[in-house]
């Protein structure tokens, strides 16, 4: 074949080159206008143009039009070209007409006349051009004119193949344009017989037109079935060398095969057993071929082969009559679900959806309904589930939603059981889309609950109707708030009541299976009642039911009852009802043999504790602690400590409790606990004397826990003077008592005691000499431990040289601990390096840091970093900063940080739309806040909706760029006028984000939707949201100030790394300002899968198997901005028992850490 490039019209090529060389839009327009003027002149001129010139100019006009400019002349010249005898001129003429002319053009009469001439031409190429033109324009007028001509051409024996192909498709287009046009009956059989045509191209074209005719009059064209089957059979059994031209990458005639398979989907399976057998053979052959090794490694080969395969599977599902083919199809799809190619997984998923939602009704299939088809549907549903879990970004398209939901109504209980699981997982991803499942689930549940055990036959398990399905349905409902529809809600409440009633009925069987199944439903129902948290009487009934179980002879039930009661205790409606069972629970704590039951009892006591019963519960827990199992001691200690602090009205009680804790279970008292008691004693003057007295007494016990020594050392160092008046605890006695423990303690405790001693010198100058003797002691001043030696030397020097005034200032009593330490501490740490001189002692800043560590710093310019075990650890590393902390520790922190968290909570947007709207807008469906919250971890959704207006968002982001499409929908029955949405940023935000919004039409018609596109670039990290002000006129001016869902995480892209890299990076980012942390109560359920989806949707890459604790989530990502790219690491540690999370974000930029942490915390 000769090279096409370069031949043709030179003038055109020059013009195109000129346009391409234009540097600007203006230059291009200028060049085009020049050309237009030139062409206009030529066309107007007297000199008649020859065919070539006309062709060239018409072609230039066409090119200009295709560039997007209007053309208002030259049509006549184009029509003139049609009557040319030269192919190339005719072709340009027809092209111009098909691209530019619409059906109402004045010249249409002329055009139709030209087409008529060409159709009757002897030159097949002209006929072909005319047919293609008709097919391209396909107007009604043409349909009326040529509708009866073309069938003749199509079936005539004289027509050549190429023309037949065009005629077939031309006819198809005309039928579409004019649906009442039908070929007369005489053609039917001849058209059908085109399927037997020698020429495969003709068959390919003919199948399409036959397909469309079959849709209109299936009976008339029924004859095509057997022909199609035999044609298909010939193709399928052909080897790839047989069909030559029509073989595509070793696959014989793939396009034709697919078209034939589609044609057959218009009919039920063929009646004639011969045809049917042949068709089944074909389908089997296709399925067999899928198992053969590929003939080529090219993707074209496998695509072509699989196109046929998928179409064959559609036909098999459509035929609904061959169980064994269905099974094979399902297996084949199952294989594809794990294929490495995304396309195949996607398509297999679609076909699976079809399979899972099809209603199989044919007799032959019905016979196998139970054994085969339902099993098939079941496994299809579960296959889907598995796949959705593996690939969170894979979701079935919207069209399946309602069909999938309606699986809940399937006749077959097994299918419903499988379907509920997949629906549950889909609900987690897009709750709104699948909201419809609530009412279906409720009615299904109601039918099961009210069924007698004989009704459900196979699905009755030891006289309990469908226990597994019931539990799954109850679980599904826990994804949603109580139903809004009062009817549905009433029905659901009835169900729950029935379940509670059944628990009171005498058992139908003594078998444990029966009671287990029954109670499984009962416990799940109680969970749902707790989740809904809206029906006080149900909650109280649930509580009473659980109360009965608390004394049940079966351990399992007692255990489960304690567990559920824990949740009940958190509901305000049932808290009091739970408290009635306090004695039983305490009794359980003492008498249960199984440690896991006792553990639950501890949890429940913790949960039911409030001001009124705290002293009793704490004392019970303390007394139990003495004999408690080692495995639960640490947790109990924390719980006691928290309860004691939370409900302490009298702090002497609190001090007693904590000291008791240390006495009873000193080994299990973590540092946080005793740090905290010291903080509280220092902050509360009224308890200081009591604390000093108590620790002094505690120290007198012969065996005294080291933690006790630490607390005593610290408190006596501060407040020993308060009890020094008593002869029994004179300064010297205090000192000797402390020092008697000194040698039994570890270095860290000794260091602390040394500080106490130097404080004693200040408090009690009379024992200075005794203390200095100790300091001078060989084992201290030459201690092998650098920390001890340094302290000893420094203190000795300080007490020998400094005047009493200086000493008194330096060793001043500790100032109260600030309420919100963490942020102050961070800045404190930054300042420290500069504070090495001793002069600033009276400075305000310095006072704030007055602790043992500061003392150290003054004494020597060397900053001591070995402070780990000292009390000052309290300041330098707040308890939450230890990443390996057990989740229990976070409980304690929550109590500390309560105020801090709620303060951050208010950072949520407070643009209250309701108040700014006029009274016509009553039923707001989606507030901006709701929309924004959802759109943090999703790109698409509804931003705002009320009675008038709906605003939808679709967005795509890539690195630091994004494109947001806003869809404004008019929900009313009249126009919105002066519609004007505007987007603005604060000055701060303008520096960080650049936004370009395209203007929108100022009018939105009733029920119409307009789109606005906004291009976004992230220049630097940011924390504000842009404002979207929507103004329009509808019954007076309307104004909606909203926020645009553009959050920093939109520019977060996932990264992947292994465990080692992650932790080394994590450790490198150890500056407190690089970390942001929040500890908070879970606002939603704590389902791991949901959490994963949210994290991925948020933009993070989930790192599996990185954290040693599989419950924890570890993620990494990069925030892209024009200025800088910031790597972000995340750890999310859920505590199921406490229903809390600890979220830690580290990144190299403090503002990024803060912002990501804030955004993400809102999501859980």
């Amino acid at each position, binding site marked *: *074949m*000769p*090279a*096409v*490039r370069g031949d*043709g019209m030179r003038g*055109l*090529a020059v013009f*195109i080159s000129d346009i*391409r060389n234009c540097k600007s839009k203006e230059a291009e327009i200028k060049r085009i206008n020049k050309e237009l003027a030139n062409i206009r002149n030529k066309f107007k001129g007297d000199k008649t143009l020859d065919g070539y010139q006309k062709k060239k100019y018409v*072609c230039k006009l*066409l090119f200009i039009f*295709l560039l*997007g400019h209007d053309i208002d002349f030259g049509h006549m010249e184009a029509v003139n070209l049609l009557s040319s005898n*030269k*192919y*190339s001129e005719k*072709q*340009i003429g027809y*092209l111009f007409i098909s*691209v530019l002319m619409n*059906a109402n053009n004045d010249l249409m009469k002329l055009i139709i006349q030209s087409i008529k001439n060409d159709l009757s031409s002897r030159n097949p*190429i002209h006929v072909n051009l005319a047919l*293609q033109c008709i*097919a*391209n324009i*396909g107007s009604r007028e043409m349909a009326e004119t040529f509708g009866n001509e073309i069938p003749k051409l199509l079936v005539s024996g004289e027509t050549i193949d*190429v023309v037949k*192909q*065009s005629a077939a*498709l*031309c006819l*198809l*287009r005309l039928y579409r344009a004019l649906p009442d046009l039908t070929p007369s009956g005489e053609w039917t059989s001849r058209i059908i017989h085109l399927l037997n045509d020698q020429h*495969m*191209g003709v068959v*390919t*074209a003919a199948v*399409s037109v036959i397909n469309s005719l079959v849709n209109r009059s299936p009976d008339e064209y029924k004859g095509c079935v057997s022909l199609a089957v035999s044609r298909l059979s010939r193709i399928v059994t052909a080897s790839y060398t047989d069909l*030559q*031209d*029509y073989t*595509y990458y070793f696959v014989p005639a*793939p*396009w034709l095969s*697919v078209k034939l398979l589609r044609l057959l989907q218009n009919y039920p399976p063929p009646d004639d057993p011969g045809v049917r057998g042949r068709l089944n053979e074909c389908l089997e052959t296709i399925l067999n071929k899928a198992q053969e090794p590929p003939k080529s490694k090219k993707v*074209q080969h496998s*695509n072509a082969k*699989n*196109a046929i395969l*998928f179409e064959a599977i559609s036909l098999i599902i459509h035929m609904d009559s061959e169980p064994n083919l269905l099974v094979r199809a399902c297996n084949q799809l199952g294989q594809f679900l794990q294929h490495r190619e*995304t*396309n195949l997984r*996607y*398509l297999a998923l679609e076909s699976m959806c079809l399979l899972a939602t099809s209603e199989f009704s044919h007799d032959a299939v019905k016979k196998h309904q139970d054994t085969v088809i339902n099993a098939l549907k079941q496994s299809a549903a579960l296959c889907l589930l598995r796949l959705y879990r593996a690939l969170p970004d894979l979701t079935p*398209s*919207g*069209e399946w939603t309602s069909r999938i939901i309606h699986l809940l109504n399937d006749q077959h209980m097994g299918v419903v059981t499988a379907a509920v699981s997949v629906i549950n997982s889909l609900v987690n991803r897009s709750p709104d889309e699948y909201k419809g499942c609530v009412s279906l689930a409720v009615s299904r549940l109601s039918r099961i609950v009210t069924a007698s055990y004989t009704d459900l036959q196979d699905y009755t398990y030891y006289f309990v109707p469908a226990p597994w399905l019931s539990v799954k349905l109850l679980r599904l409902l826990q994804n949603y708030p109580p139903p809004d529809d009062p009817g549905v809600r009433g029905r659901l409440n009835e169900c729950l009541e029935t379940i509670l009633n059944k628990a009171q009925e005498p058992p139908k069987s003594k078998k444990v299976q029966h009671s287990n199944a029954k109670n499984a439903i009962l416990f799940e129902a109680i969970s749902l009642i707790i989740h809904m948290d809206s029906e006080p009487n149900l909650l109280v009934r649930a509580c009473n039911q659980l109360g009965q179980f608390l004394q049940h002879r079966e351990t399992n039930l007692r255990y489960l009852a304690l567990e559920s009661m824990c949740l009940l205790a958190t509901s305000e409606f049932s808290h009091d009802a739970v408290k009635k069972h306090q004695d039983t629970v305490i009794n359980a704590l003492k008498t249960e043999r199984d440690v896991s039951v006792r553990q639950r009892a501890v949890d429940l006591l913790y949960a039911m504790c409030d001001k009124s019963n705290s002293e009793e519960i704490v004392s019970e827990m303390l007394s139990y602690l003495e004999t408690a199992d080692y495995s639960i001691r640490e947790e109990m200690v924390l719980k006691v400590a928290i309860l004691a602090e939370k409900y302490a009205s009298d702090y002497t009680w609190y001090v007693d409790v904590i000291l008791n804790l240390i006495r009873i279970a000193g080994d299990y008292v973590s540092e946080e606990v005793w740090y905290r008691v010291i903080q509280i004693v220092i902050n509360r003057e009224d308890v200081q004397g009591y604390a000093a007295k108590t620790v002094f007494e505690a120290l007198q016990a012969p065996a005294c826990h080291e933690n006790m020594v630490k607390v005593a050392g610290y408190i006596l160092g501060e407040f020993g003077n308060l009890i020094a008046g008593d002869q029994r605890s004179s300064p010297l006695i205090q000192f000797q008592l402390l020092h008697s423990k000194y040698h039994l303690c570890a270095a860290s405790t000794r260091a602390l005691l040394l500080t106490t001693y130097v404080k004693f010198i200040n408090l009690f100058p009379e024992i200075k000499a005794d203390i200095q003797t100790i300091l001078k002691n060989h084992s201290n001043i030459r201690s092998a431990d650098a920390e001890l030696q340094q302290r000893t030397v420094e203190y000795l020097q300080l007490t020998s040289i400094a005047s009493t005034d200086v000493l008194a200032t330096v060793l001043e009593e500790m100032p109260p601990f600030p309420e919100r330490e963490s942020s102050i501490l961070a800045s404190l740490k930054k300042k420290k390096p500069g504070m090495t001189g001793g002069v600033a002692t009276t400075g305000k800043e310095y006072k704030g840091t007055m602790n043992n560590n500061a003392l150290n710093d003054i004494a020597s310019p060397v900053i001591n970093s070995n402070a780990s075990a000292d009390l000052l650890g309290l300041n330098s590393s707040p308890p939450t900063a230890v990443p390996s902390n057990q989740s229990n520790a976070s409980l304690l922190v929550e109590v500390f940080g309560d105020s801090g968290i709620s303060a951050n909570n208010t950072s949520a947007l407070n643009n209250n739309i309701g108040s700014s709207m006029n009274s016509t807008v009553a039923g707001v469906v989606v507030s901006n806040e709701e929309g924004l919250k959802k759109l943090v971890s999703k790109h698409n959704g509804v931003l705002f909706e009320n009675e008038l207006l709906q605003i939808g968002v679709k967005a*795509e982001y890539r690195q630091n760029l994004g494109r947001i499409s806003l869809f404004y929908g008019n929900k009313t029955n009249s126009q919105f006028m002066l519609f004007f949405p505007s987007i603005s940023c604060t000055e701060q935000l303008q520096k960080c984000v650049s936004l370009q919004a395209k203007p929108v039409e100022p009018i939105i018609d009733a029920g119409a939707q307009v789109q606005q*596109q906004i291009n976004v670039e992230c220049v630097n990290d940011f924390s504000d949201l842009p404002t979207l002000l929507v103004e329009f006129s509808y019954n007076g001016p309307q104004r909606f100030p909203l926020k645009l869902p553009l959050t920093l995480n939109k520019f977060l892209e996932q990264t992947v790394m292994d465990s080692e890299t992650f932790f080394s990076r994590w450790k490198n980012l150890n500056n407190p300002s690089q970390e942001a942390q929040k500890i908070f109560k879970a606002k939603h359920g704590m389902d791991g899968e949901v959490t994963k989806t949210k994290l991925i949707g948020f933009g993070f890459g989930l790192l599996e198997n990185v954290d040693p604790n599989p419950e924890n989530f570890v993620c990494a990502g990069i925030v892209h901005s024009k200025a800088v790219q910031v790597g972000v690491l995340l750890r999310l540690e859920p505590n199921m028992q406490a229903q809390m999370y600890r979220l830690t974000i580290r990144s190299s930029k403090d503002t990024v850490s803060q912002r990501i942490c804030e955004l993400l915390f809102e999501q859980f």
Partner: protein
Amino acid sequence: MIRFILIQNRAGKTRLAKWYMNFDDDEKQKLIEEVHAVVTVRDAKHTNFVEFRNFKIVYRRYAGLYFCICVDVNDNNLVYLEAIHNFVEVLNEYFHNVCELDLVFNFYKVYSVVDEMFLAGEIRETSQTKVLKQLLVYNSLE
């Protein structure tokens, strides 16, 4: 059926637009922009199929050009994916190593290639040999 065929480059310039439904000009322009927005952001690892309005776009990228065919949602995806490739192979043969510029300078010829292979929104001819033979005849005709 095929609703339209678009060939666009990465920058969004349309190299070919073939419509098999009656859209008005504004609508066509809108569709062109939307398709570009939908297709160009997709990763190579994504599927070659995107849902689009009530339709589906089957697309494939060749160097800087996106070949997009808009079809009905229930159409056979793979068959159209390979129809694109078949079309590209024909173009490649016809223009001897086709490049974007060939499509610019010979736009009127590309339209006739399309009409040979697709007509009325259906696949008309799939044999590369036959299509090329026919195109050769046209070329020799003047």
